[in-house]
């Protein structure tokens, strides 16, 4: 405040991350050079996790950055921005992030499901934010853009349909031969 207003910026997000209940990284994306090396990044994540995993807040000032977070079962979702950033913008990104992952995992937000759908989770993170600019803040849009892949989400019926389809294909091809 003393230094006057900062230059207007549309790079709202500095980093997003998903950690497990031991503070290990499931996914992390850093959009600027606040933490240039992997070592510094992981240290930041560990410290952030230690500060937040028991506190039932939703927001914390940490190492001069504003971090909003949300947890479920054994996963922790974080969105990090500068200390000057509008906290509500960060919160809107966090919600988009969480809700889209939740939809991809069929409301089953836990580590196992996340690892089983890691490819879709990577794609969702990529659709959420590009280089610090929020690309899409509507979780449905994000899922829709990733959802060309919904045949990959293991769901009883779909898998069954797939098996049938491939069996049909095989028979067809063997007849055509």
């Amino acid at each position: 405040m003393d230094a006057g207003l900062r230059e207007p910026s549309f790079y709202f997000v500095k980093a997003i991350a998903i950690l497990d209940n031991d503070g290990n990284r499931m996914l992390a994306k850093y959009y600027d050079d606040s933490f240039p090396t992997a070592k510094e990044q992981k240290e930041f994540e560990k410290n952030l996790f230690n500060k937040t995993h028991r506190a039932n807040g939703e927001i914390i000032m940490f190492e001069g950055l504003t971090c909003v977070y949300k947890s479920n079962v054994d996963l922790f979702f974080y969105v990090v921005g500068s200390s000057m950033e509008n906290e509500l913008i960060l919160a809107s990104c966090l919600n988009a992030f969480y809700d889209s992952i939740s939809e991809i995992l069929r409301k089953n937000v836990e580590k196992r499901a996340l690892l089983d759908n890691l490819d879709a989770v990577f794609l969702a993170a990529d659709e959420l934010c590009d280089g610090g600019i929020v690309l899409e803040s509507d979780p449905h849009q994000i899922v829709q853009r990733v959802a060309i892949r919904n045949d990959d989400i293991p769901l009883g019926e779909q898998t069954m349909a797939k098996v049938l389809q491939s069996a049909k294909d095989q028979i067809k091809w063997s007849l055509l031969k």
Partner: protein
Amino acid sequence: MLSLKRDKKEEEEGGGNPFYNLEKSAVLQEARTLNDTPIDPRKCGHILTKLLYIINQGENIGQNEATKAFFAMTKLFQSNDPILRRLVYLGIKEMSKIAQDVIIVTSCLMKDMKGKEEFRGPAIRALCSVTDSTMLQSIQRYMDEAIMDKGPAVASAALVSALHLGKGSHEVVKRWVDAANAVATSENPMVEFHALCLLYHVLKNDKIALFKLVSKSRKFRSPYSYCLQIRIAAKLIEREDAGSNSELFDFIESCLRHKSEMVIYEAAQAIVQLKNTTAKDLAPAVSVLQLFCSSPKPTLRFAAVRTLNKVAIKHPAAVTACNLDLENLITDVNRSIATLAITTLLKTGNESSVDR
């Protein structure tokens, strides 16, 4: 010790986590099988996911290894599997900074950015990650078309990519000003926001143009657009030393009545940060912050009390009206909020409030 713990967990879960203890060398070795024909999309997709995982874990991949994996990956363009294709784009983006001769994928990506709808946005973003300044000329026209595309995913991808390409260089981004202007009134909130970002980036140093950009009294669709607009307006007021009589200040003040909390808060924050504000100018901003103090959302309470804390440094009197609300926050479950409330009260409180 940590790995022991994990092993145990893995046994418990039966089958365990396929991604733990992945060796970089093993994954890179496996990545060579991407060269095999025919392509098995499921298997290759899994290998790519592993590769993305170790990169995301921060593994250091050497230039040679990265280049080998990158070239193996380019073979996958032969497959039309949508999942696989998207993972390849991600891989290209991750590897483009480490591998050599990444330009090799340019023509494949340019084909995709004109191809199937679902590939276009991601293909543009991947393309721009491998493009350098010498190739800008050749992609300019396609980018123009993409920005004005009807699909919001395509337009947003192109606008954001243009911004990344022009990081630090106005000359580069300038090429796309006309296209951005054309979509600045887009029906899609995100496209509108990204177009505004691009216009602002180019016009940053042109005071008159910026003024026009802000004072255009039109309705935006995206709250993000309003936030950026408020930031630009506040900066202009400060630069011009305009004070609260200007049209720009009126714009910011009108945003205090917006329906989105995000915009209201951005406006309040801007007003309290301006230098030459009188107590009268501050009052409406402080009263919305006061309202936010009793919100059920911790983020909103945090934002409000943090801003009030800043106001209290310069204008303690303006915050006194909120003392009661601040006192309620002392016992907030979020410790950051409680701490901020206490430090704010120390600046504004007096003897009478100590008793309560």
